[in-house]
């Protein structure tokens, strides 16, 4: 397979503070006690992709990620870890490693994608139409708690957030329009020219870009070279390619014209065979001259692969998403976790110790070597390794990472407790995040706060 795979593992995302820190970059955040990056790597491994480049922002983070990968995947994958400066954006990251890219197509995956969609399906869709870019699209995740929460949360669950406005052709193969970010707040403008070419466009507000792209390598590099202002694949490169698909500026001034034309010719044949379609796509029709003569216009194709609704596909790009993913991976989407669930629908590591009258409900996970005192109750939560939890502790809808100490009588609801944090007696937390190594003193009550050590 002439595909190179680039995993953009990011660095320490500001959105995820205080969960991330220099020691724990985003890629290593635990989802069901496994770094989130492992989900992507294992999906790729399943598709038999073993050579990949993992791009990490920032040297410290790269060191952490590199260390973990070499330890965890020493015999299984051939991974090259590349470091790029922080805040270069996804496009900048690719620009920085451009010299590593040699294959015909490049698959770019975000390292924070937790999904069971086979990457092979995306690459196949890409190849089938000989597209310049193929983006994976998935349904917008239903955020928030499914159970009763505060009234505000309830409203949120009713109305899923909007991430993108996506326009596709009726066959749902081609991407015709994409709006992201601030554009969502404005009226949607659809170009008539593309609508004329395609006839019908389905516009969906309930889908989002999952940040897994297959790019034609030469096109990608050309765009990155020419548009040196482009920072983000999602917000700059993809919309640019979508926008210019009927008036392609690429391919013309990139590789030598003759070679390009020849390549195109070959592609046309292979395309026809692969697509097994007697009807040309609207791109080709549009490209034709007035009387069906030789193509007069340059077009390129932007394709989509829509993950089916039964597949799980969420990006870990916010604290809420972190909570949701942890809940789903040990709950509804537990096939992703790779663990075997017990009859009670939970996972308690054999080495974990439970005190008397302590209950661990379904959809829970208790990591290796963790100890719990008496009369504790754990519901829909993940507890990491080597945690020490006192007696009479309630943990509901929360994520507790490794080496956390929780004193007696604590109540934790909808919160994230990072590694090495310490909760003294009778702490009550609701919808809080406790940063790495933070100590919550006895008897404190917090609601909806983010607690972390001050950065020195």
């Amino acid at each position: 397979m002439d595909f190179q795979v680039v995993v953009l593992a990011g660095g320490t995302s500001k959105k995820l503070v205080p969960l991330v820190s220099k020691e724990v970059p985003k890629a290593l955040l635990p989802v069901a006690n496994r770094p989130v990056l492992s989900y992507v790597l294992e999906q790729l491994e399943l598709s038999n992709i073993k050579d990949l480049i993992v791009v990490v922002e920032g040297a410290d983070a790269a060191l952490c990620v590199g260390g973990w990968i070499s330890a965890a995947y020493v015999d299984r994958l051939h991974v090259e870890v590349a470091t790029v400066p922080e805040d270069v954006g996804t496009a900048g990251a690719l620009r920085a490693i451009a010299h590593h890219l040699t294959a015909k197509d490049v698959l770019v995956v975000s390292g924070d994608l937790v999904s069971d969609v086979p990457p092979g399906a995306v690459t196949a869709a890409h190849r089938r139409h000989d597209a310049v870019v193929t983006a994976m699209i998935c349904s917008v995740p239903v955020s928030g708690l499914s159970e009763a929460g505060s009234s505000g949360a309830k409203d949120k669950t009713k109305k899923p957030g909007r991430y993108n406005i996506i326009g596709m052709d009726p066959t749902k193969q081609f991407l015709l329009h994409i709006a992201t970010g601030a554009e969502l707040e404005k009226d949607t403008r659809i170009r008539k020219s593309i609508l004329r070419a395609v006839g019908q466009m389905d516009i969906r507000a309930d889908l989002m870009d999952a940040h897994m792209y297959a790019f034609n390598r030469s096109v990608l590099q050309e765009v990155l070279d020419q548009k040196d202002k482009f920072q983000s694949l999602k917000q700059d490169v993809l919309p640019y390619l979508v926008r210019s698909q009927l008036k392609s500026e690429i391919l013309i001034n990139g590789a030598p014209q003759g070679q390009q034309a020849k390549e195109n010719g070959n592609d046309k044949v292979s395309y026809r065979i692969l697509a097994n379609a007697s009807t040309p796509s609207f791109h080709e029709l549009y490209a034709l001259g007035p009387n069906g003569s030789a193509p007069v216009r340059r077009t390129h194709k932007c394709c989509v692969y829509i993950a089916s609704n039964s597949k799980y596909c969420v990006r870990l790009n916010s604290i809420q998403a972190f909570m949701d993913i942890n809940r789903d991976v040990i709950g509804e989407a537990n096939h992703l976790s790779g663990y075997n669930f017990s009859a009670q629908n939970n996972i308690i590591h054999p080495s974990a110790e439970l005190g008397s009258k302590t209950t661990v409900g379904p959809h829970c996970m208790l990591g290796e070597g963790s100890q719990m005192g008496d009369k504790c109750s754990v519901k829909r939560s993940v507890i990491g390794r080597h945690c020490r939890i006192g007696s009479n502790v309630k943990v509901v809808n929360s994520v507790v990472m490794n080496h956390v100490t929780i004193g007696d009588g604590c109540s934790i609801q909808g919160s994230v407790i990072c590694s090495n944090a310490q909760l003294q007696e009778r702490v009550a937390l609701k919808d809080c995040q406790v940063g790495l190594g933070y100590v919550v003193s006895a008897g404190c009550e917090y609601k909806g706060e983010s607690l972390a050590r001050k950065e020195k």
Partner: protein
Amino acid sequence: MGAQKKRAAAAAAAARVSEDPDDLARQPLQAILLADSFTTKFRPITLERPKVLLPLVNVPMINYTLAWLEAAGVAEVFVFCCAHSKQVIDYLENSEWFSQPNFTVKTIESHNIISAGDALRLIYEQNVALVDIACLLKLVSLSRLKLATCYTLTICFLVVLSFKIHGDFVLISGDTVSNMSLTQALQEHKERKKKDNNAVMTMIIKKSKPSPITRQSRLGTDELFMAIDPNTKQLLYYEDKADHSKGTICLDKMLLAENPSISLHNDKQDCYIDICSPEVLSLFTDNFDYQHLRRHFVKGLLLDDIMGYKIFTHEIHSSYAARIDNYRSYDIVSKDIIQRWTYPYVPDVKFCGNRATKLERRGICFTAFNSEIEQSRSAQVGSFTVIGYGTKIGSNSKISDSVIGEGCTIGSNVLIEGSYIWDNVIIEDGCELRHVIVCDGVIMKAGAVLKPGVVLSFKVVIGERFVVPAYSKVSLLQQPTVHDSDEELEYADNSSGTVEFSSIQGTADQSNGEMTSESSEAHKPKLGTGGVGYIWSICEGGQEEEWRHSVAPIPEDKLTELSEAMDDDQELVTQDRTALSTSGELISDSNASEGDDNEDSKDDSVYFEKEVEATFLRAVEENVKVDHVILEVNSLRLSYNMTSADCAGAVFYSMMKLAIKTPHSSAIGLLTLYPSPFSMVASNAYPIYLSGELQQNTANIITTWQKLLKSYLLEIDEEIEIILKFEEMCLESAKEFSPLFARILHILYDKDILQEDAILRWADEKEGADESDKVFVRQSEKFIQWLREASEEED
């Protein structure tokens, strides 16, 4: 008047029916047929004959519509006649339509109606009036006040108001050809209506992709953009009469918030067949400005979110529906009829008002013949041709893809291609006709040639060997002198057209000979020797647009030209985009296409600024009170959705502009008026006395209008906005101020327009800016320093 009595009885019956709610389900289906298109596209033909009576494959159009309505299960049709109403009514009265079982046709006549909206309003008013009279009748009978006069009056009314809409009805115009079944669409409409009382209309649509090059459908209508909810089929957006200059379709953000999934269509054609609920009539009355069914009514409903009325669509797939809107659709629909897409309404099947013709199969093509044709052996009649009764065709004539009416005489060596020749036309030897329409009674002298797209109206005579140029329209009537370029005027003109015509027609018969002789004298050279008629000059849209709606196929070179134009178009758009994108990126890493939207809001603010400036200048000229100016600016602010900071900026901008424009008086040395120890000596080359004057002007204006300005300075942010605005002006639009920056700042401070906090914060903000950005901070350094010291002292 027996008929009228009958009508009265029917009305009374209808009134009774409507009072019985249980009967609603079994109500017979009604239809309103507009026997007027309220446009001028078929002129000059429609000056003499109403459009619905024009023959389509030798059958008047209205017969297709009525036959379809009858087959579709409509029990009662109200034919609304405006232009040439007498002709329409006469035709219908002599036709079989009035004697059909289970199918009643009633005519409504009105002359002062100029649009479909007016027609529906009239129907509604009479509907309501009828109910009123019914009540009145009841009241009368109850009170037993048998006033004879009262009765006669009521009956008189009833005679006029002999129709009533009592349920869902089909709204259609008399130029529609269809063979679709209404059952399903009607069912859907009724079910929707039951669930949601606001679902007032179901529009029939059909797939038909317009050509991307000409941007019009095969029927010659403008391309249509629609947004439809794919699940409920609700219509969310409708844009015909596309504005080509706008390259985008703008969907309201609320639309997408409410519907996560929308289908945007450019590949659908509006069939102009609507199933309406009775509310539609009242809607037209409520909104008296609705004229056009689509442009006003549909768009009005879509935009109006207060009442929440909804329009739905029903797509037909295998059946046929098309409206004849222009000459091109006349051509296309005729061909469709000949090629039997409209079965059973085809030439060889007898439906009301036509005589079935014999079909001959030639190869794979059809040619419809009538038995009484005199055809010379050497004449060649090609495929897809219909020839009417009693037509004679001379030797060696070639006819293909054409329709020829009854009683025509065609000489020898005549070439007819893709043309429509109506009844009793005489074509002499050697004529050539390609893609033309020739109306009744036309005489073409030998050797005359009609170029593609020509329309010859009734009884025109074309002289020997005369070549009629392409796309020209020839009529015995002179072109109306009132030319309407405006959309609105189209209706008005139409009505005047009919009035004008009726007067002509009244005298036409008597003065026919006179008229012809007169016109032939005056216009002999125009149509060759012996020619009679006027060639209309092409107006409205000009010749360039003529090919769009003509019977002739679009010429090759036009297509190439257009497709090239399309390329340029596209290029412009992309260039635009890329140019903008770079600017968009500079601001942040926001995406490129946002630049487009930024541009828009920028436009808005520019307009806003201009409006405010105009308001302000007018206020100064007319001495308007400050309070009123505030009101006006406030309303502008609301309509442009601006913040008070924007207002403050705009007002300030206009004040400063005024200061520059104010003629400089001769007073010199006014510098002393505002002795500002903090100002630096103006390093600019601008003459110092002028600056002084300018400063004086500014001071005066600020003093006069400070109240206006202050009303927008609610918070410190707005004050900073003013300083920034001023800075911007000094750099760009009003460089005259740049040496005066510090002084005017001081004036503003003195007048309490700017607080020291604002100035200091502005200075702080600028601290980190580029050197070039700090010019004015530098200039006012002393002043700022003084302010700082003063505030410290206070502390």
